Structure formats: structure tokens, C-alpha cells
């Protein structure tokens, strides 16, 4: 459908064409003289807008967004109630059987204290024969000199 611009738009509407330009609406007398004052009074009665400088118009939302982002980050990283400071882990020295022997600890006593589940080292049933003991220790590659000293 091809629409023609004015004046041909009313080409097929003779009645409308003949009525054009008339205004039957009557405006009460002096309405336009008093209206500006009335509307101004209402405008002033409502919260008068303060002129906002352009930089504030940009800065305000930017600051608000920054504050929201900051709160969100703090909320995520900072738990609701800060836990008590965890005690520093005890420095546990990793003792080897050799260390225990060197320090003069009775391995059998330690084993008894720990119980059978906590195996410190294999319980060794030493034979009564000294030669056999020495042979065993040599075989186990234990610090013989220290043991001899202890014995």
C-alpha cells in the first residue's frame, strides 16, 4: 500500500478536507494567563529540583556502584563471625627409631605406652646369645656402637 504525503492524504476524504483548520474547542477566558502561575505554584510546592552538576551526576552512581561492590567483596571474604585464631600447629619432630635409640629412650617402653596398634617399630625379640644379638643388629644396620655403649 503506497501512502501519499499531504495534501493527497485527504484526497479520498472530502468531508475531512473541508473541516480542516477549524477548532471547536473553547478555552475558558484568561485560562492561559493564570495557568503558568498556577502550575509554577504547584511545581514549587513539590520538592524543588536542585541543579545537579554533570560530574556529580556521573560520580554519584559510580560511587554507589563501588560501594556495593566493596560490600559484596567484604561479605564474601569475611565470614559472619570471625573464628578464633587457630593455634599454631605444634612442631612435631619426626623421630626415627635411630633417634630414639640415640636419645636413650627405651623403645619397648614407648611401644607399651602407644599400644599394639601404634607400631613404632617391630617388636624385636632379642635372643639371649650375645653373638646372635650382634649378628642381628649388624644385619638390621642399626648403630651398633651406641647400642653396645648402652648395653
Amino acid at each position, binding site marked *: 500500500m503506497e*501512502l501519499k504525503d499531504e495534501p493527497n492524504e485527504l484526497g*479520498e476524504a472530502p468531508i*475531512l478536507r473541508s*473541516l480542516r483548520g477549524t*477548532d471547536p474547542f473553547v478555552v475558558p477566558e484568561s485560562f*492561559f494567563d493564570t495557568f*503558568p502561575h498556577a502550575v509554577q505554584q504547584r511545581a514549587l510546592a*513539590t520538592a524543588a529540583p536542585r541543579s545537579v552538576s554533570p560530574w556529580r551526576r556521573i560520580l554519584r552512581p559510580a560511587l554507589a556502584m563501588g560501594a556495593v561492590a566493596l560490600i559484596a567483596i567484604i561479605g564474601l571474604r569475611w565470614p559472619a563471625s570471625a573464628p578464633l585464631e587457630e593455634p599454631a600447629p605444634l612442631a612435631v619432630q619426626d623421630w626415627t627409631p635411630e633417634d630414639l635409640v640415640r636419645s636413650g629412650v627405651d623403645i619397648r617402653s614407648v611401644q607399651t605406652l602407644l599400644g599394639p596398634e601404634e607400631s613404632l617399630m617391630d617388636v624385636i625379640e632379642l635372643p639371649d646369645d650375645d653373638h646372635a644379638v650382634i649378628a642381628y643388629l649388624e644385619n638390621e644396620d642399626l648403630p651398633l656402637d651406641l647400642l653396645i655403649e648402652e648395653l
Partner: protein
Amino acid sequence: MSDLSDNELLDLFRKEESRNYAFNLLVRQYQQRLYAFIRRMVTDHDEAKDVLQNVFLKAWTGLDGFRADAQLYSWLYRIAHNESLNHLRKMRRGLFVSEESVMEKLTTTLDNSEHFSGDAIQRKLQQAVMRLPDKQRAVFTMKYFEGMKYETMSEVTGTSVGALKSSYHIAVKKIEEFLTTDQTSGH
């Protein structure tokens, strides 16, 4: 009416000391044109006055954010257009009635109004305009009564020029048909 340009008016409005003066000039400059449009949309003078007042109150609060690259007249007209449509929508919602009932109310208002001087054919024309859907009525009013350009109408309504031309064409056809039928039937 003042001889100030839109930009001069806006400059005055942005200064605290001349804000009220500038607003007064602005109202005086645009009140008649905006009133004419609103009056044709809502028919009744008192309702038109209320809508017009709302238009200028919105302008008062919104002028600070007005972009100088747009036309002040188009901007004000857009507010008037939206306010008129809102008013008709509210009226319909308030009455809980159909389109026909609203049209009837508007016709009665027109018949009883002391502020309508038109003859029988003018009255029929107004009735025909009131039968149009709200948006189409706005398009017809802007084009037929105000002689507005389609480009300006497009800025005001946010509708494409093609759609506006089509809408106006349909409105003209409907109204002419209504007027012809009414005249030949002797009403």
C-alpha cells in the same frame, strides 16, 4: 510569548536565580499548543487542565536531564502524548468499562460541555475521532489537527514513520466512513 530560543530558555533554567523565571516563560511558550493536543485527546477542559499541569510538572523535574541535542518542543510533546494516553488508560481502569463506554462518556462530556462551540458536523467529527483507539487518535490528532511532520511524530511517539503513515491512513478512512454514513443516514 518570549522570543528566547530553547537553548536560551534552558540556560536560564539551569541557573538557580533565573530558574523560576525560565520555567514561567517555558509554560507560556508551549501551553497553548500542548493544551490543544491534550484537549482533543481527553475532550473535557478540566481534565485537559489536569493533564497539562502534570506535563509541566514532569518537565520541571526532568529539565535538568534534558539533552540539548533534542528539540524541547518534541520532548514536551512526548510527555503530553504519554500523559494523555495514561489519563485515558486510568479513566478506563477507574470506570471498569469497555472501550464503547468510555467513548460514550466522552461523547456525553462533549454534548454537555459549555466549552465546545462546534456545529453538528464538528460534533460528529469529534465523535468519530473518539471512536479511534487511543494511539491512533493521538496520531490522527497530531497530523490532522496539528499538521505535525511525520518525523516529529516519530520522535514523539517512538514509532516508525511508515507505521505512523499507515495508522493515519487507516484513521482517515475510518473517520470519513463514519462521517459519510452518518450524513447520508441523516443523524
